């Protein structure tokens, strides 16, 4: 379970998150939508402590960290509870696809190398990269790189996978293959929080949609509620515009 309490984040004087509260239960798929620059990515990065929150409490998988009293050990424990899929893939440039996926298993979870490589191979086959195991990231297309990124996040043994606009940097032709992998994951009851502009994906896959604007959660509900019957004026305007495309 994930529980976020009164989370705020300021960059210098610029408040990006102004008090976020929400919970996600095990197996739930939450999609966060909203205009650019409203703190969606910052929220996701805070959950993984890639940004340090200014204040607030984050609890994932029984590890609770209050930003005011967070120690390095606590942060490290919390990080292990989630894994991250980056907009720009961020694969390890000096490692092959297989090594990218196995790296965390070997270094973080101390799994014996042959076992780690076997598991990594299985995951890469699952995301359809059977013949790309020994390629370096620079030799892969954007869509392939992102699928490696998802495989890397899948083996991380965290409770939740955080997706930060996983398809925004992709050429249109690669978007579907990445979304297909994410849909498969969703079917396996993998807990996911996804920041995306793919409204179709949100509608089809999400259990719950959160609409964020200006550093606040403005409205949340089932895809049906948010897309067909939004209550808040801001949500109505955004959804109307977003669904035009």
């Amino acid at each position, binding site marked *: 379970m994930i529980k976020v309490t009164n989370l705020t984040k300021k960059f210098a004087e610029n408040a990006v998150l102004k008090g976020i509260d929400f919970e996600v239960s095990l197996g739930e798929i939450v999609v966060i939508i909203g205009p650019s620059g409203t703190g969606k990515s910052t929220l996701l990065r805070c959950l993984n402590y890639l940004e340090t929150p200014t204040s607030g409490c984050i609890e994932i998988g029984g590890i609770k960290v209050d930003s005011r009293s967070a120690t390095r050990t606590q942060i490290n424990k919390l990080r292990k509870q989630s894994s991250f899929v980056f907009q720009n893939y961020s694969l390890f440039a000096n490692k092959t696809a297989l090594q990218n996926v196995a790296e*965390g298993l070997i270094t973080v979870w101390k799994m014996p190398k042959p076992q780690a490589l076997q598991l990594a191979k299985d995951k890469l086959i699952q995301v359809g990269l059977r013949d790309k195991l020994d390629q370096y990231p620079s030799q892969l297309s954007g869509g392939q790189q992102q699928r490696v990124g998802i495989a890397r996040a899948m083996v991380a043994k965290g409770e939740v996978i955080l997706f930060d606009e996983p398809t925004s940097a992709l050429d249109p032709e690669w978007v579907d293959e990445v979304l297909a992998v994410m849909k498969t994951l969703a079917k396996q009851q993998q807990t996911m929080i996804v920041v995306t502009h793919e409204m179709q994906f949100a509608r089809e896959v999400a259990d719950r949609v959160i609409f964020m604007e200006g550093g606040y959660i403005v409205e949340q509900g089932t895809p049906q509620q948010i897309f067909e019957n939004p209550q808040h004026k801001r949500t109505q305007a955004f959804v109307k515009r977003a669904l035009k495309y």
Partner: protein
Amino acid sequence: MQTSLDIQYIFELFPYLLKYLSVTMGMAIWGFVLALIFSVTIAIIRVFKITVLAQLCALFISFFRGTPLLVQLFLLYYGLPRFFPIFEGLDAFTAAVIGLSLHFSAYMAESIRAAIMGVDKSQMEACLSIGMTRSQAMRRIILPQASRVATPSLMNYFIDMIKSTSLAFTLGVTEIMAVSQMEAASSFKFFESFLAVAFIYWAVVVFFTRIQYLLERYLNRAY
């Protein structure tokens, strides 16, 4: 007064000088290995901005870049033993190795730091996101990538260090420069002697330039 160049003398000198090349290369290799250890440590301290240590490293770099190598060697070999008896047993070879490594580590640390800073910060984030610690990330991902960027300039420093070992003759180390100096003094064939030693340095540097090329080609494969 002899005016013609005694080429035969130069060729006779080569095998004799080459016997001492191991001393020159010994200083350069030991010096470089130590300098690598120092400079990587300094670079990491500076990248992570570790308090106190980072300031000390900045001072270290400032001093060793701000004073001539010869002065540093003299300070180390002739100066320190007076105040620190522990240095009294220091032989000239070791003193030269230490002096060279300190001097070059100041420069190399800055190259390595630049190379580390040059690795995209998304690489560190990716490491942290899967639960790696900062030092694991450094070892497994950041330093291997930085080493590729740093290699050309580090090889340049190594080549520079080979030539700088010639200063060790002022401490009394019998390396190729010292031998050619002694030969020149006894035969009065200064030009021939120094020409011979110059050719040896040149040949060694050409050799390592070739190694550098091969090393870079190896590091630049695939990714």
